[in-house]
């Protein structure tokens, strides 16, 4: 499994949160999650402009084995989605922390990510399987 980038924050439900320079946040799913799902075959992404509550289901990732909801780690408004995933969902498997990002949002409350886990705390959770 790839190393967990230390600047990311994590939700217990295996989503990661990355602070972007312009106050936006990028959201994706962890390497642990993509591994558990297996080869991804389809990703359903939210509409741009949609407002999300913290913990609200905002996307679905589907493999041959399972279809899983992705939950927004913090409340915010969707400003961009990763269109490449429509044709190449396997990007999430190959590069879950980089090219496999799912969406970008403008957080409702700046700093809300402090309630999330740190990379090392998540590492412990993921290791427990």
């Amino acid at each position, binding site marked *: 499994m790839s190393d967990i980038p230390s600047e990311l924050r994590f939700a217990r439900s295996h989503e990661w949160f990355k602070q972007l320079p312009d106050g936006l946040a990028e959201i994706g799913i962890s390497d642990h999650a993509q591994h558990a799902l297996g*080869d991804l*075959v*389809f990703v359903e992404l939210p509409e741009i402009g949609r407002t999300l509550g913290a913990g609200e289901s905002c996307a679905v990732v*589907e*493999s*041959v084995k399972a279809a899983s909801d992705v939950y927004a780690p913090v409340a915010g408004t969707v400003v961009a989605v990763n269109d490449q995933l429509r044709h190449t*969902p*396997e990007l999430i498997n190959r590069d879950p922390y980089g090219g496999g990002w799912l969406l970008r949002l403008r957080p409702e409350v700046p700093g809300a990510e402090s309630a999330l886990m740190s990379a090392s705390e998540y590492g412990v959770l993921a290791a427990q399987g």
Partner: protein
Amino acid sequence: MSLSMREQLIFQYSRAGRGARAQWPPVASADAPAVPEALRRRQRPLLPEASELDVVRHYTRLSQLNFSIDTHFYPLGSCTMKYNPKACNAAALLPQFAGRHPLASVSHGQGFLACMFELQEMLKAVTGMRAVALSPLAGAHGEFAGVAMIRAYHRARGDLERNEIIVPQAAHGTNPATASMCGCIAREVAVGPDGDVDLAALRAAVGARTAGIMLTNPSTLGVFERRIEEVARIVHDGGGLLYYDGANLNAILGKVRPGDMAFDAIHMNLHKTFSTPHGGGGPGAGAVGVSARLMPFLPLPIVAREDGAQYRWLGERDLPQSIGRLASFAGNAGVLLRAYVYMRMLGREGMQRVGEYATLNANYLSAQLQQLGFDAAYPRRRASHEFILTLKKQSQEYGVTAMDVAKRLLDLGFHAPTTYFPMLISECLLIEPTETESKQTLDAFVAAMAQILREAQQEPEQLQRAPHTLPVRRLDDVRAARELDLTYKGVAS
């Protein structure tokens, strides 16, 4: 079984103007009523233009690409792949039964209705329930009816708070879905190391919001829920009802009755326990049985017998609190007739033998496979009609998975057992031989598993790349889901 011939699609037989003309009515006369202009179809649908021989040959060849009970031992756990007696089909297809319209008059349907009534009565007798309804069209449909009745019962008592259905961890995926369909929330309870429901966890879960519990017994782990009477007490004392998923009824048929275990609602899978054909995916029939307190809520219609042995259908006026109609008509009558004939041929002693010999076969197979070195998930427990092997050790030592073993069994002429269910046990095979298989067949299966174990140790690629000898090799599931090809595009819509 045909091995190397690839069979093309039926559409590829088409030639313009060709057809099975012996089957076509004459062309409509000139004064036939016309469809209004605005509603008329302009372009023919693309259906095959093939001769009758083409069609027969094509589908016959396709049939030869299948495994089936009639050709192969099919030890699929939880599916009860027992022999389907041909007399059942012959009786159901008698022209008077096959040609009966569902809404035809009851006065000229007493023969058919007698069969349905007696089927209800026999199912009551073998399950110990007070009343039976035959209309649910499949196991999952019967489950829906069961939970809907439980919900209706609480509502009728004015208890609107009860919207939780307790489900053991190892339950089949339809159970929580069914709860949801009935506007309930599924609440999981843990299962202990020996396969029984964790009573402490159950006590904690039961409360004022409990509508009921859904259980299979023997459970999906292949073992009998030994403290079922205690489980029933806990749930009933808490005000909830008990629902029995009849998927594993074959294990206890004639030996134990769900009604005696205090279940309030049960569904039976007639296509499992009562040997109606699986048909490559259906039709099933999910008859439901109830205790006295749920009788008012049964789905309609049901057959009743008036004095003088006249049969009639009960309707809304007779059962005003019914959960309603669940199917277009009275259920899968053709399937019900097959189950009826099967039960008449077995009779009372035959039913008991089903449970006895299904259990004998499972315990024998389990013992023989453990002798070879396979690990049973619950080695200290009696097998019911099925048992679980875990291949965790083999997967760690040799890098072969339950899937690999399953695929290699196909090469050796056996359909694979159920794999990866229940999800609680890793790398598992759920094996159910059924009572209709002989010791010789079971021994041949054991020999095949012995060969597979040797191959796992010495040449694991034989397993990992299996099957080798079937019409197709292992198929790319990921590609199937990523690049959806769901209709033949040689035909335009």
